[in-house]
């Protein structure tokens, strides 16, 4: 960890100005990821801009949906009565992640901006294109059991670690940000990016922009949803594969389908073609498998993560079955439903 200066922002404008004026400055809120990264010398900010006093900690009604302020703790979101009633998929995904202590500290905006858990990214004794652009990606020929199978590049095969973001992707949330050029709204699918040849960039945020809120649209999928997470132990582990499924049903027929995968790509993974293939079809294993096949057709295995393709296929089928039946995965009962 290096020495750094500390600024407490008094307003959003102040935070934006301080951040935009200093390429080596970083925003700190909950710090649950940034502080770790600093301890590992992965992040070496020369200034931390503390935004925890900004008025961004409310959950409000907004255009028929909810606006979740960037500073609302993950646990507050997960237990908010409006969220659990209307967006139980989001609550479930949050509770599938981390630990109560971390969820209490972690903020909504920070969850969006958390960085990959790729071993190499955290180990300054190894090269990593995401940490040091151009230095190489040892994960491609190394220990890559936890790495991506979709949307990878020759420069990076890291995954995005968030559970919450997988649900937000399925819910078609919008990220509202403010930067030196004013505010803008980013559709969730466009917020995170694939690694391509710039794996150091996790998101489409420009330096100087900060997240103000995550806005949930009015379609809430509160009857037919699930967040199914598969991992190496029954709690407190990142997803090997996770599935956020949200359906609207007409009897046995799927009217609307949203499906996002976690643990498989550099961003929560959605496939519009697969979702359309479900719509108008009768819910059932064959329909689900066909959608899974569409999603995984382009999957690319590496030496240790080939199992994720079959696991994702099965998880998609099970997740869609749970959602269609209205029997979502419980995040307290560790038995898979």
């Amino acid at each position, binding site marked *: 960890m290096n020495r750094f200066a500390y600024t407490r922002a008094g307003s959003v404008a102040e935070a934006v100005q301080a951040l935009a004026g200093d390429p080596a400055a970083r925003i700190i809120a909950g710090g649950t990821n940034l502080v770790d990264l600093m301890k590992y010398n992965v992040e070496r900010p020369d200034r931390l801009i503390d935004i925890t006093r900004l008025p961004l900690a409310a959950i409000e009604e907004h255009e028929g949906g909810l606006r979740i302020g960037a500073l609302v703790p993950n646990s507050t979101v997960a237990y908010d009565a409006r969220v659990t009633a209307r967006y139980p998929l989001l609550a479930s995904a949050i509770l599938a992640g981390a630990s109560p202590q971390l969820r209490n500290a972690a903020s909504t905006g920070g969850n969006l901006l958390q960085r990959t858990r790729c071993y*190499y990214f955290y180990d300054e004794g190894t090269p990593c294109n995401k940490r040091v652009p151009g230095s190489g990606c040892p994960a491609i020929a190394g220990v890559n059991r936890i790495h991506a199978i979709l949307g990878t590049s020759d420069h990076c095969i890291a995954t995005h670690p968030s559970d919450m973001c997988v649900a937000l992707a399925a819910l078609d949330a919008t990220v509202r940000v403010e930067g030196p050029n004013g505010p803008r709204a980013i559709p969730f699918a466009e917020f995170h990016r694939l690694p391509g040849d710039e794996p150091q960039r996790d998101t489409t945020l420009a330096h100087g922009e900060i997240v103000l809120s995550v806005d949930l649209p009015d379609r809430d999928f509160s009857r037919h949803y699930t967040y199914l997470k598969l991992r190496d132990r029954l709690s407190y582990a990142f997803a090997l594969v996770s599935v956020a499924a949200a359906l609207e049903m007409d009897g046995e027929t799927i009217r609307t389908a949203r499906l996002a995968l976690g643990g498989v790509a550099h961003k929560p993974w959605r496939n519009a073609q697969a979702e359309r293939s479900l719509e108008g079809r009768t819910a059932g294993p064959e329909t689900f498998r066909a959608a899974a096949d569409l999603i995984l057709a382009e999957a690319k295995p590496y030496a240790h993560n080939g199992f994720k393709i079959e696991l994702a296929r099965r998880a998609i089928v*099970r997740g869609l079955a749970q959602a269609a039946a209205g029997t979502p995965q419980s995040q307290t009962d560790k*038995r898979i439903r």
Partner: protein
Amino acid sequence: MATTNLHVGTAQSRLDGPAKVTGTAKYAAEFKAADLAYGVVVSSAITRGRISAIDAAAALAVPGVIQVFTHENRPRTAWLDYNYRDQVAPPGSPFRALHGPEISFGGQPVALVVAESFDLARHGASLIRVTYEEEVPNTDLAKNREAAYVPPKKRSGIKPPPDPRGDAEGALAAAPITLRHEYKQAVEHHNPMEPHATTVVWEGEGKLTIHDKIQGVNNTQGYVCSVFNLKPDDVRVISPYVGGAFGSGLRPQYQLFLAVSAALDLKRSVRVVLSRDQMFTLGYRPETIQTVALGADEDGRLQALLHEAVAGTSTFEDYQESVVNWSGLLYHCPNVTLGYKLAKLDTYTPADMRAPGAVTGVFALEVAMDELACATGIDPLELRLRNYAERDEGENKDFTSKALRACYAEGAARFGWARRTAEPRSMREGRELIGWGMATGVWEAFMMKSSARARLSIDGSLEVACSTADLGTGTYTILAQIGADALGVPIGRVRTQLGDTALPEAPLAGGSWTAASSGAAVELACRAVSEQLLAFARRIDESPLANADLAHVTFVDGEIRLASDPSVRVAVADAMHAGGVETVEATETAKPSLLTSLRYAAYTHSAVFAEVRIDEELGVVRVTRVVSAVAAGKILNLKTARSQILGGVVMGIGAALEEESMLDHNVGRFMNHNFGEYHVPVNADIHDIEVIFVDEHDDKVSPIGVKGLGEIGIVGTAAAIANAVHHATGKRIREIPITLDKIIA
């Protein structure tokens, strides 16, 4: 002397519990010192090669950074390898931090940055620039199997495999039922909660007080005196609490060397604490590839057993553990061949990790036995009973005691084993396949030489003391229980002192030997105190005990009473008055009986039964029930004993399903070096665990009939779970950990 059993054998809460939960128990990194400097270690980015340059200028330019120690400016220390060998060092050249530019394992310490604060030291460490001449690392055990060798020098205290008996290959060829398979154990790191840390307090004039994370302060003292050419009188080591160790704290680690080096050079107090990722640069349970071949008749009676293991070690030391020996003693078999080889890898030296060797070897043997049960159609428990060893056929000795049959019977009854249907995949509930598996566990019942002191005061308080460590095992409590009963003192008036070189010397806390060894020493010391007290009591004018000898009295409630007539008594305080003393103190040494160890084999045993529930499609395994039935001689404290077994079982669940340090052979580094990615069981992974202690009377194993419990809980647990996985799914997985990908494969 007849002792009461008011405390020994009962359930007593930890005496050190309140100090631990209130934070007053001090660990190595928590001791204060005036003018303390803080050291942060810089770890090598390469695994094999040489340092070509270290640029410390930027770090040294930071105000508050005191010094940067590297191989170029390190203080002089002893020259010979011999001086660096600690009490449990395996054969070879012990690692010396900052000795030279050569790098021989990933994360090797290359610099120590010492500063006025921890933050400054860490900042300084982030500014050190090291350039290397890198060589291709060699860390893949599978690729080094052909070059494996029988270790030329044996490690002290570790028995090499016994000579073959009979003709195993011949009997295997002739046996009607045979199997031969390969089994693998992944690298595991101990990962105790408390990271390794040392605080060296500079007392002036070359005198040091050292607080070190160590499983025995005498090992630290001996190492420091030998390496730095200091006198024992000038080096006191005080480490009363250890935050878990599991074997990682048996040997002095490099943070001790670096902290003492810096303190002696700077002539001030220095603290060095390792980070969690640096904990993965210390010892570990080595990766081991094993082959087990079994030959049996149709009734499942073993005719032939071959067990060979190849384990990784470092390039500089031949770490050895007993992996295959268990296969020579656990079952009756006339033809047995065992082999154990090492392969040199560019890693740090492995280290003893809870039940070293037994976790690995018994996993392979006990899964193979399950495979034999399947091949013969005999119930796994019945198969083990048919092959029950009445003697240690490996060493041709009788057992001091062996209540393993009772473990099988009581464990099976409690588990409900009789309701198991033999066919794999035959039990399910809803989506989940249910599997029931079992295995045998075994560990050596050691006793080591240990001294201890007992001091009884006229106010009725008792202090028992020796230098060993309590790693969270319950040693503080059991020693107090022994003292309380020996001298008739309520346990609330007994104080145990541990972890200080100023106390009578006791062995390292390891190998499950502490209770038997230091417990026996405390009992001897108390007995010596009681002798003195009785002598004083007899001196009293018209003493009612004038003609009593020690065999005929008991010490109860602060009185010395005639066992046959408790109304005949003398108060301990009156005896002390008669003797003109206010305290009576004795230090005694308990030693193992050489004759007993020549004639008898001493082992703890267990039978482990496990239930798993598996969502086969998604690979999710839940261990819903474990019953561990243990035969370990006398149980001193039902509560801490149970906790030892619970902890062992949980760690066994980790070994079975989760724990694996993943080496990238291209860079030679353990990649998942943090608690997020190195998985140990969490609460959600743990369900019902039941512990049974079967009756086992043993008057030979140790003077107090105790065998020890630190390791036995983990041995066999992984095999029971692997066997349960097979019973649930029909899939035989011979590599641990059994992760999700192996289930769905």
